């Protein structure tokens, strides 16, 4: 279980986020170029799901990074 969690955490990278965003955008653009039931439904469900996941990963990584920077700054200058 720990190994699995470690592997999942390893997937949380900005590259993964970028790839997921590209996939989500592809679904959204497909629905606009070909507005038939299947593309429209996939864009509004899978496409937006991928986009939201990608942004959540980005936010997680950036916030984690900012907190680390603040921690380092505190360690350098405890006052």
């Amino acid at each position: 279980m720990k190994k699995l969690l470690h592997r999942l955490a390893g997937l949380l990278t900005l590259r993964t986020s970028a790839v997921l965003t590209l996939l989500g955008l592809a679904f959204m653009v497909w629905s606009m170029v070909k507005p038939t039931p299947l593309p429209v439904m996939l864009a509004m469900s899978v496409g937006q799901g991928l986009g939201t996941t990608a942004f959540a990963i980005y936010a997680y990584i950036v916030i984690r990074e900012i907190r680390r920077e603040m921690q380092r700054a505190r360690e350098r200058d405890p006052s």
Partner: protein
Amino acid sequence: MVSWIISNPLVAAAIGSAVVAALLLVWYLLRRPALTHATKLVLLAAIGVLPLATATTGNIAGFEATKERQFCGSCHVMTPYKHDSEDRRSTSLAARHARNDLFGEANCYACHADYGMFGTVVTKLGGLRHIYEYVFHYRNTSLEEARETIHLRRPFQNATCMHCHSTQGTSWNATKEHASLLDRVRSGEISCASAGCHGPAHPFSKPPQARVPDPAIAPAPDATQEQAR
């Protein structure tokens, strides 16, 4: 297709945002820059702001697209209805309404939409049901069979007609039949599209006795319109 995208500002904006976001993401994936403040800001635009703009404008464009006759007719079982609506010589109610500029390309939606407070949501949920039915029951149905079996789930409501034909106009009430049946038309007891009045909306509409019964839905006792599924 290009002219369609350019003529539709929402679609053009959505695709433009998506292209810029994709370019920034491809740049990030290929160059692998260090995670500086500038990189974070570029990624905020590429992963957050621009895709959000694409999703928002894309949603609006998508919902608008679902109102188009082209969208309704993209399932093969609906093509006879679409062709009838587009036929300039057809005298069916649907075709005559499609020739009205107020309905135009959205004539299916104008008559089949729910106009209640949550009408759009209810109509879209109904649309999801249509897609479910199509994918699981009608995808391989022949056109001949579809014409015989497909029918409305519930009787068509006069309220939908009354959304435009309010039944209060002088010329409307000047028609003897309208005046004598006013209360029964307003209450929905007599359908506007019943055989003795304006007739069925589509050439393939089924008379009540020819409908395939759906055990899940009890028919209205005096329904004169198509029902079920």
